[in-house]
């Protein structure tokens, strides 16, 4: 009896093994799976000998088959359910990190009102959508078309006692409404501008400094047809600083002796055959010559260094040249010295 049992068990095991044989694949290293992306990666080294021995396509297909089988085995292990007569396997979240398409969205910056409300702890209150309209005796929308208690639709408006009797009260209301709408729009745009870190229009700019004010005042003062000649001075106004005369002219009639002196000097310069020395020009010339000399010297030295150093990098060449300078002279320079000695 026991004999038969063991036999049967063995047979069952064998059957099971044979069944599994068709779906089992042997790999040295296990594959890495990312089932969320239906992805598998096989890190095993590809057997080059097999690859060359077989036809390439057949080998690739065999490899693909094995890998697919492994991936499918893994997929079939996932919990599955029947949805509308189709077997559906649940997939885990993808684990392979891929870059985003666009940056992470930023939360909208709060509007001015929202900032204020937060500061004061004001919370949003939900208003009912419908409101009782006393005139029409029915529930109407709070806002918009056919709204309740719409004062722009009144056919009669009482003129307040204090008001000007000629003033159009309807126009006044309409104007007020337009103003409110415009203000709201402006605030909306300002909120957008603030959100985008632009200059917020209409906001009070930083108060101009004392200097700026003074300069503005001066400019305004001289901006008249008579260049500010007839402008009155303000109380406590100080005279502008650093505003001296731009050109000093000699008086038309006056000291004859000095004028004579100047003319004579001029004549002397013209008449003399000796070239007149322009000091600034001379100095400039001298400086330039010195610079040129220094540059040429430098260039000469660099050229020699370059030849000696060959194609070695610059820094190294410099170092070598230095070392040679300190050590015994070599090459051409030595020959030159010999020559000198003979003489």
């Amino acid at each position, binding site marked *: 009896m026991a004999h038969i049992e063991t036999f049967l068990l063995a047979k069952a095991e064998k059957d099971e093994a044979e*069944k599994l044989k*068709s779906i089992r694949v042997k790999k040295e290293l296990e594959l890495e799976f990312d089932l969320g992306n239906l992805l*598998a990666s096989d890190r095993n080294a590809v057997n*080059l000998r097999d690859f060359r021995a077989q036809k390439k396509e057949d080998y690739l297909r065999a490899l*693909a088959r094995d890998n*697919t089988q492994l991936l*499918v085995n893994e997929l079939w292990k996932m919990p599955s359910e029947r949805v509308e007569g189709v077997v559906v396997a*649940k997939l885990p979240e993808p684990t392979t990190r891929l*870059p985003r398409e666009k940056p*992470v969205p930023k939360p909208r910056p709060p509007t001015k009102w929202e900032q204020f409300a937060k500061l004061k702890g004001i919370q949003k209150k939900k208003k009912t959508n419908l409101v009782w309209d006393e005139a029409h005796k029915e529930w109407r929308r709070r806002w918009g078309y056919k709204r309740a208690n719409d004062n722009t639709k009144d056919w009669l408006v009482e003129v307040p006692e204090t008001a000007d009797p000629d003033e159009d009260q309807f126009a006044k209301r309409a104007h007020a409404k337009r103003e409110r709408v415009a203000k709201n729009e402006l605030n909306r745009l300002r909120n957008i501008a603030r959100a985008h870190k632009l200059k917020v229009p209409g906001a009070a700019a930083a108060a101009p400094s004392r200097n700026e004010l003074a300069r503005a005042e001066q400019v305004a003062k001289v901006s008249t047809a008579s260049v500010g000649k007839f402008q009155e001075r303000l109380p406590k106004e100080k005279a502008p600083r650093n505003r001296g005369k731009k050109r000093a002219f000699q008086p038309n009639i006056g000291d004859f002796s000095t004028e004579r002196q100047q003319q004579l000097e001029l004549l002397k310069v013209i008449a003399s055959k000796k070239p007149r020395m322009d000091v600034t020009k001379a100095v400039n010339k001298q400086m330039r010559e010195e610079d040129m000399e220094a540059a040429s010297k430098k260039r000469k030295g660099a050229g020699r260094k370059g030849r000696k150093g060959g194609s070695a990098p610059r820094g190294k060449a410099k170092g070598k040249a230095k070392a040679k300078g300190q050590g015994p002279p070599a090459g051409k320079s030595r020959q030159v010295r010999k020559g000198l000695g003979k003489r």
Partner: protein
Amino acid sequence: MTQLDGVVKPKTRRSKRFLQSREPKLTENVKNAMIMKGGNTSETVTKALKDIYALKKPNAVLYKKKNITRPFEDQTSLEFFSKKTDCSLFLFGSHNKKRPNNLVFGRMFDFHVLDMIELGIEKFVSLSDIKSPKCAEGTKPLLIFAGEAFDTDSEYKRLRSVFIDFFRGQTVPAVRLAGLEHVLHFTALEGKIYLRSYKVLLKKSGCRTPRIELEEIGPSFDFVLRRTHLASDDLSKTAHKLPKALKPKKKKNISHDTFGTKLGRLHMQKQNLAKLKTRKMKGLRKRRGETIQGEEEDSAKKAKVE
């Protein structure tokens, strides 16, 4: 009010919805691909582009006209097209003497080129060259990468990532098991990358899991790697950033050890043993007289101390 640059206010509901669909989101849309050809293309490249478009179809745009640009030299026009069509993946095909049969796979982040990898086609078999039943359009393919280069070489690693990005299609919470019928197999071997596409045939195996047979459907490519333009670490880090809202919340006081056993940590206050209620027995009941005696003793002791 001056003009606000970059602030577009939609004028209609429809355009508002359109703009909303293009805004950056927490969980993003499927990446779209634009497939375009350069100034000159060979027949191989044109066919290859068409075939890849067929694989990628619902999430791709195939450009019909030539676009004379060189992605590795000037990326502005690519960026422009990307913005125009809201595509963050691109495939650019060209053909010239220096680089014959050239494909550039690339992806964008925030409408700027992130990675670009140039591949040369050595051998190409088109989808239409193989006469066999094809897969349905828009099938999510199984992606398989083989070869150690995909794990060791940095360029190949990035290439793998680009390929996954390009071909994976939608992310789905569940998949129809019988609908897994397309395999893309990438093999890196001897400096070449073999891309093969197979149709999966599910055969009976005797157990629940089916046996797999594959049938080649094309397109198949033998690629060689040419130039690459990989994103800097900085940029790729910002591109890989996971939004805070999507990060899994850390559960306090729960840990797992190396064997995967769940461990919990409990915080308990010290038990007051004086208030412990035990079983009452008649024999241990306190009598009135005893307590009084004890108290008296106590008070006596205290008095002594004082």
